[in-house]
């Protein structure tokens, strides 16, 4: 049992914003929202220390429900706004919430550079394998062969592995979970928030309304049961023989490493530059 | 020279041309700062921008005047310095009939006018100072001596403020060398230029 009770999330919900929220019944974003709030409370952060930044899409609507400073930006650009906020006020805990299309298609460039730069930002990437808000078009994470409103004959492009992409690009912390594995999700979000440097948490979430319906995957309950069936702790997954790994989804902390954090490096530059300026006087 | 400066200076359009890497941008900067900051004139300077960082014809244009400078580019050039044949050919189309034309005698075999003053800037920098890269400064020394558009004193101050520490003596020598080249040549062919007061040749 966590030291703080689950119900504290109600304190962090923004009550002048009308509930129920905009998402479809059963959407994993609501589960993620609760998980994120518990992780924030668990981290001991004050509401005034946290800024939530999102892009466009279903995930973009998440920050508005949270009683913190929240910025709903343009499609794919959440990380750029977050970078500005973090540079301007390094004391703030800046968390971005993006979807898979948001983060790896239109915002893919920003994602890899944010990871490379390693600014102290937490990026939550909700992967539902489709563009849900616009009606189920294929995204960079849509599996090969899957149906989408823009892939009526089946999807022919290989998909991104968001976690592997982030790790390769240089993120200090990369983790994956699903909205079914919600206790693990709580922990991983907490770890990512605590980690100095760029942390990515990939959250698999069902879009039964668009992706599930087109691909006959049943309700969100069925899709979450699939997460339950396939999800495996990464430590166990790594012990699987190579040929059997594709059947399961590795969950947990995939990368956790100490790298130079942009803000600290920049502070050193400032010190050097101001010393040189004084020496020149 | 000193009485010339007492006069009001009309618009004098100068163009320094050569090949990228010959230091014409620095020469233009020094000329502009000498006239603007030390001689108290109004100045405007533009330089050619191209994709190539080295080589090719490049130029810096400095307008010097005692009035506010409206048009910042050369329209009728009063003073033309060319350090390569390519630059001399490329940038000589709008010289005033009586413009000062100063060229490097070794590198410009066919100057745009027979009245051009030909001085061996690069050879002198190489032979006398052992530093061919100060040919641009030698040329500035000659420009001050020949035209009087800028004062030698202003030029020296502007130059010393711009060049890297440790090269001040070399650069002063280069200025003096340019002035001497110009004086020596003046005995052979007096240089004529436009009147310093502004005239609009219609």
């Amino acid at each position, binding site marked *: 049992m966590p030291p703080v*009770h*689950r119900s504290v999330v109600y304190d962090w919900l923004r*009550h002048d914003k009308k*509930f*129920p929220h905009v998402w479809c*019944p059963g959407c994993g974003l609501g589960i993620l929202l*609760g998980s994120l709030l518990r992780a924030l409370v668990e981290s001991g952060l004050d509401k005034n220390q946290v800024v939530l930044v999102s892009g466009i899409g279903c995930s973009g609507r998440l920050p508005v429900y949270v009683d913190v400073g929240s910025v709903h930006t343009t499609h794919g650009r959440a990380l750029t706004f977050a970078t500005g906020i973090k540079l301007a006020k390094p004391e703030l805990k800046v968390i971005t919430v993006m979807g898979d299309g948001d983060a790896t298609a239109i915002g893919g460039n920003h994602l890899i550079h944010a990871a490379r730069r390693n600014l102290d930002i937490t990026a939550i990437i909700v992967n539902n394998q489709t563009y849900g808000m616009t009606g189920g078009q294929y995204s960079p994470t849509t599996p090969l062969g899957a149906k989408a409103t823009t892939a009526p004959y089946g999807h022919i492009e290989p998909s991104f592995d968001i976690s592997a992409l982030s790790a390769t690009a240089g993120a200090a912390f990369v983790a994956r979970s699903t909205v079914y594995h919600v206790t693990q999700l709580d922990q991983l979000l907490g770890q990512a928030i605590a980690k100095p440097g760029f942390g990515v948490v990939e959250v698999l979430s069902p879009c039964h309304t668009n992706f599930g319906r087109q691909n006959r995957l049943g309700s969100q309950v069925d899709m979450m049961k699939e997460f339950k069936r396939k999800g495996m702790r990464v430590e166990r997954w790594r012990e699987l023989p190579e040929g059997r790994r594709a059947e399961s989804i590795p969950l947990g902390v995939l990368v956790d490493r100490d790298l130079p954090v942009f803000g600290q490096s920049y502070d050193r530059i400032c010190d050097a530059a101001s010393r040189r300026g004084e020496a020149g006087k | 020279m000193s009485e010339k400066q007492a006069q009001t200076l009309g618009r004098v359009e100068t163009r320094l041309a050569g090949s990228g890497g010959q230091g014409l941008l620095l020469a233009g900067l020094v000329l502009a700062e000498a006239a603007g900051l030390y001689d108290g004139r109004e100045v405007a300077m533009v330089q050619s921008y191209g994709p190539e960082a080295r080589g090719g014809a490049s130029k810096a244009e400095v307008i010097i005047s005692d009035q506010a400078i409206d048009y910042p580019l050369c329209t009728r050039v009063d003073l033309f310095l060319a350090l390569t044949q390519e630059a001399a050919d490329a940038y000589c189309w709008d010289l005033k009939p009586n413009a000062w034309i100063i060229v490097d005698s070794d590198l410009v075999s066919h100057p745009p006018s027979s009245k051009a003053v030909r001085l061996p800037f690069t050879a002198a920098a190489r032979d006398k100072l052992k530093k061919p890269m100060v040919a641009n400064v030698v040329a500035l020394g000659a420009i001050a001596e020949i035209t009087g558009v800028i004062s030698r004193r202003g030029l020296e101050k502007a130059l010393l403020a711009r060049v890297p520490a440790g090269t001040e003596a070399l650069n002063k020598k280069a200025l003096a060398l340019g002035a001497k080249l110009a004086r020596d040549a003046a005995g052979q062919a007096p240089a004529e230029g436009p009147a310093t007061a502004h005239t609009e040749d219609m």
Partner: protein
Amino acid sequence: MSGKAARPKPAQTGESKVSFFPAWCKRCGNCVAFCPRGALKRDQWGYPVLADPDRCTSCGLCEMLCPDFALSVGEAGPKPAGAGAPRGSRVAPTTSPERLAPEPNGGEEDGNG
């Protein structure tokens, strides 16, 4: 099914381990589907009810898997202003979901009315 409709809603009892906020509930069924002990059932309208309180261990999974913050489990947690208040009002009155949600037992939105 018809028998369950007559069952008093747990939120009204003041005793239940699970509080439901039907105004926020979208009847997705996560809580019912994933309750490890099968303690929750859907009523005839699809809303969850604690059908078998004895089986409920207050593990909280239903709360965590509810995307709509429409139910809350357990006795723990802060007891802010109005400590004797009915279940479901454990949070401060100014931030309580009930302030926006219709009365659980009164309105037409209840779906059971």
